[in-house]
């Protein structure tokens, strides 16, 4: 494949990230324009690339010598999700970030993070994956500390320590697979280790991959950094971190390596199911008791990532034990669809929390109240997002949760389906609490002259709310065949991925 589009996904954000501090040090408007143009063009490139499939060889070197980037259904879907959320987040930042100084640094770090995520998604090479993982992680550590206050620095340090341990484990796992195979290209590694998964060195590598990416995905028991780091960042960054970063760096990278390189066996799939179910339950019960709006949302991120991991693990388990292929496809479809849905509604919720914080100056639910007339638009969008995350029809969250429950029933895991429904109910209760305390009740005296968020911020809220309402349509068979099924196929093909990668030489 010789398209010019894939390199643009890395070159544009990297180039503009370094251009902004050079030309827009004192011109905030120019930084805004450049940042938004960059993310808008990235979204356009991601959409244009959607039908493209194949292997892009960097510098024309053939794999396994050169580094290859792989475009398949899954990476295309992830690219669209990541670049969509980053565009909405930059649009929101124009007015929201005015309270901070040094907007140009903000946009630089933001675009570096986007470049890192795009790279992780594209990469078909283990070490290249690690490099992009670190680019995205390091800029996200800095973005969490962006406000520079006590809590932000503390959260950032905690995130940095756990994140670096995770990255180092990933590097160690990459080194171990290189030691066994002598290759870094995912296709070659996968072909060479086929049938040897039980060797101790490879088991060790698999464990390190799971732990390393698990830290990035913040699944229980590797979650402690997330509830501190995500609320401490500025709202658009929280939306990026919860909406796409934990997915691109965590779940996407993990499923790529497990499904397509190492290959899922029943044990690995069992670990995924256990971790997913545990994250769902622990996350939601920790969330119920929270009174800080953003912290509550962060705990729900852990819980919702549990759904995604559970769906993927279930699919992997059915495939590995030779069960019905239909049920496996359904489970993976549910997991991936929930991943896309969660990006949309969770970033919407974080942006809503940002617009409330901007208006009222507080994140504590107990200090809010009666905002329904003052902020009607925020109320409407926040309600839509809350209903989506709680899985109320016809919003998008309902459909993906339904798929996961159905798949669990078909696979004979009725108790998992029961847990899934129960967690969904607790989520609903928790969000009814949010809506009740933030928007209903009497308006407290200090909030008398609260105003609705500025127009630019509202546009981004409405954009995401429309997506939340309409994304259920992706399940219509004709649309599903184009958008979701290729992504599912990329994972359910499993190790055949390696062969197709070699065939693309």
């Amino acid at each position, binding site marked *: 494949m010789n398209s010019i589009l894939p390199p643009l996904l890395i070159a544009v954000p990297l180039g503009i990230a370094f251009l902004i501090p050079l030309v827009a040090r004192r011109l905030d408007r120019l930084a805004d324009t450049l940042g938004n143009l960059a993310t808008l063009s990235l979204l356009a490139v991601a959409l244009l690339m959607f039908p493209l499939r194949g292997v892009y060889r960097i510098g024309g070197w053939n794999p396994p010598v050169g580094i290859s980037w792989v475009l398949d259904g899954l990476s295309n879907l992830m690219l669209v999700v990541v670049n969509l959320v980053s565009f909405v987040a930059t649009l929101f930042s124009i007015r929201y970030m005015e309270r901070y100084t040094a907007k140009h640094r903000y946009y630089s770090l933001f675009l570096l993070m986007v470049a890192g995520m795009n790279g992780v998604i594209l990469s078909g090479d283990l*070490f290249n994956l690690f*490099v992009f993982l670190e680019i995205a992680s390091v800029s996200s*550590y*800095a973005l969490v500390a962006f406000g*520079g206050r006590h809590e932000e620095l*503390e959260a950032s340090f905690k995130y940095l320590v756990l994140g670096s*341990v995770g990255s180092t484990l990933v590097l160690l796992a990459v*080194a171990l697979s*290189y030691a066994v195979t002598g290759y870094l290209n995912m296709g070659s590694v996968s072909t060479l280790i086929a049938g040897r998964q039980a060797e101790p060195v490879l088991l060790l590598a698999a464990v390190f991959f799971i732990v390393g990416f698990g830290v990035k995905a913040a699944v229980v028991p590797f979650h402690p950094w997330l509830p501190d780091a995500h609320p401490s960042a500025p709202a658009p960054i929280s939306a990026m971190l919860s909406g796409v970063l934990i997915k691109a760096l965590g779940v996407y990278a993990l499923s790529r390596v497990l499904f397509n390189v190492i290959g899922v066996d029943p044990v690995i799939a069992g670990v995924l199911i256990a971790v997913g179910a545990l994250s769902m339950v622990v996350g939601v019960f920790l969330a119920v008791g929270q009174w800080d709006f953003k912290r509550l949302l962060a705990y729900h991120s852990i819980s919702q990532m549990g759904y995604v991991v559970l769906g993927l693990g279930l699919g992997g388990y059915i495939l590995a034990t030779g069960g019905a292929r239909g049920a496996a496809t359904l489970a993976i479809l549910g997991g991936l669809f929930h991943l896309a849905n969660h990006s949309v509604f969770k970033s919407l919720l974080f942006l809503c929390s940002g617009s409330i914080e901007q208006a009222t100056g507080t994140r504590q639910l107990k200090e809010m109240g009666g905002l329904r007339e003052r902020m009607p638009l925020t109320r409407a969008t926040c309600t839509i997002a809350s209903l989506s995350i709680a899985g109320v029809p016809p919003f998008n969250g309902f459909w993906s949760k339904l798929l996961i429950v159905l798949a669990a029933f078909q696979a004979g895991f009725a108790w998992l389906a029961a847990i899934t429904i129960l967690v969904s109910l607790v989520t609903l209760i928790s969000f009814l609490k949010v809506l009740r305390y933030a928007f209903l009740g009497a308006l407290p005296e200090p909030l008398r002259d609260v105003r609705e968020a500025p127009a630019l911020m509202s546009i981004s809220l409405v954009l995401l709310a429309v997506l939340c309402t309409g994304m259920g349509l992706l399940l219509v068979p004709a649309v599903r065949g184009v958008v979701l099924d290729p992504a599912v196929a990329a994972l359910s093909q499993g190790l055949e991925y390696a062969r197709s990668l070699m065939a693309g030489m």
Partner: protein
Amino acid sequence: MVYTLCFALFLTGLYCALTKKNTVKIVIGLAIMEYAVNLFLILLGYRRNGVAPILDRSTDLADFLARSVDPLPQALVLTAIVIGLGVTSLAVALCIRLYEKYGTFDVTQIRRLKG
């Protein structure tokens, strides 16, 4: 044997990063972990009495293949060192800012966030 020692070094770093109370010591622990992995990568490519992996016209190809060290891990380690430098400098900068705000390097006293 040498790999076991390398892994022991890695575990030392992990232990240090996860249990120490002092922020600077945690950063040192992270650095030790990282260098253990770098050392491991270099060991993978090492050959006793190996030659530098630079091919020129006069060298005999078979002899070269039999004796040269593996150049790829060296390239990887160079990249990993640069990344490690970035992470470490950010971590140290955060330690300094934390010290300015809290007046201490002790993580048990740096805890406003809980829950």
